[in-house]
């Protein structure tokens, strides 16, 4: 596989997670006036993914395309955090405590599943193509 392709893929995977996290934060802003608990939840989980993804995306962008190991290592580390936070959305979105309106809760729940499954897929794919172990 071409080195440039690994860099592009790694960056794309991290940016997809960034986009999904941004959507959850937007949902949080929409429900801010209805439930401050739900708002803080999205700010916490989404914020962690946003922060991690931005830092690692910059780190990947600055790496040479030849540095396959370095690129994959950064991307895998970022994807582990995002995947783990996806699990966080799955278990928290529908909890009564957060008082999130059902339509928004379902959206967060679904995004959590997408983050978890996409995260696992991209982790396995990147690890296989770059030779960098998942336990990086």
């Amino acid at each position: 596989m071409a080195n440039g392709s690994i860099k592009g893929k790694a960056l794309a995977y991290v940016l997809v997670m960034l986009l999904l996290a941004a959507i959850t934060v937007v949902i949080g802003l929409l429900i801010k006036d209805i439930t401050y608990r739900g708002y803080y939840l999205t700010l916490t989980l989404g914020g962690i993914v946003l922060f991690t993804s931005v830092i690692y995306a910059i780190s990947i962008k600055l790496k040479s395309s030849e540095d396959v190991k370095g690129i994959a290592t950064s991307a895998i580390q970022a994807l582990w955090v995002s995947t783990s936070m996806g699990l966080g959305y799955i278990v928290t979105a529908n909890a009564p405590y957060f008082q999130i309106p059902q339509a928004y809760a379902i959206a967060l729940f679904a995004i959590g599943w997408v983050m978890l499954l996409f995260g696992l897929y991209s982790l396995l794919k990147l690890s296989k193509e770059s030779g960098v172990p998942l336990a990086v």
Partner: protein
Amino acid sequence: MPANEETKGKDVFGDFATLVVPEEHTKSTLNIFMIYMGVLAVVAAIFAGSGLAQMYDAATMLKVAFIGNLILAIYGGLIAYVGGSTRANTYMILRYPLGRLGSLIGNLIVSAIPLVVWFAVETWLFGLTVNVIYPDNPLTSIAAASIWGGLLMMVTAYYGFRAMAILSYITVPFWYTLVVIGFFASVDLAGGFDKVWAARPEVIAPLGVGITYVVGLYASGSVITSDVARYGKKPWSGAIAWAVHVTIFMTALLFAGGVMTLLTNSPNVIVAIAQIGLGVGALLLAILGQWTTNDNNLWSAALAWINTTGKLNKRVWVVILGVIGTLIAGLWAGLWGMSLEPFINFAVYLGYFIPPVGAVIIADYYVFRPLVLGLKDPKERYKFGPGTKYPLVNVPGVVAVAAGGAIAWYTQQIGWGAPVINGIVSAFVVYLALIVLMEKLGISWGVGEWVESSTGF
């Protein structure tokens, strides 16, 4: 390249149980950090915070937890550096300060026996927690949950360091985030932070009592930091990862448990999370937290048994010890309802001797070898590999551990000072006093000789 690399042997036991970790198998500092965080990610760490809540208000708890954990960071960090620098596990390192035969006894005291007991206790606690959350299902009875929980924990330990790291990567961010959410939710429901800062027990204990309590919580765990730190890419990877995780995150967990106790009289974050409607989250928190801690207990115990017997490989030991621990948890405690007290008492008794082992490692590696034997290069102080000669018994080391353990036990009985710290300081002083004196007087401090075989045993 470390000097030890030149003398690699055959990894017949798995996970380099008796060999130094080769360069190509080393891991990033982040990886080491995640493993330590996985070990810490256990509900018992939050429960321990309730002990502080009996003694202090929230602000003092934070101060006491931070100072205690700073001491643990230094103590465990110094030992982790020995592992990172030599790329050897605890049981190999002990061959120098205790001698080859002495290290066999050291292995039994430090890991081989107590970690199997703790594996059983944690597995039973796992069954208990699952049963509290889902009481009305045959699969979630204490006995059944202990058995399937024990089997889960055996899986990652069976596959070794890499599997444990993968589990930690998926678990750690989720676990800590959910604990933070549970903590804030229970504070929110109990009346907010104003109530936290105002709450206090009737009598405030002296700071030293709490600091000693905190050090005692993790002093034994600090001694085996090398088992993970030896995989570090840099010699300091493990030391830094250990210090950061214990100072920041152990402090935070103790504080969370303490505050929850002050507010609700219960540190049970799992129950708090279940109460806010996060049943699945609470279950995952219990499963994943206990899993990442207990697989490490089992893995370290297996390494210790290999280094004690020189027989069977890591996977076989994981299965043997895992089945014993699971049966104790599932049948003895879970099904027959018998108390785990005898096992726990025995492990606690052995626990008096564990921190002195760490003190002897520190005294030998950082004081005796560089300052008395003149081995200034850290990588030259301990060498391993086929053909390496070790004394059978390092007499001052064995005497110092016995003395330190006895002093810790005795001062606990009479209630004098801080037993854990008494044991550490005594062992450190006794070891240096004896070995330096013997070296200066030309008396041999090492008795007999053991030559390492091609398998590293």
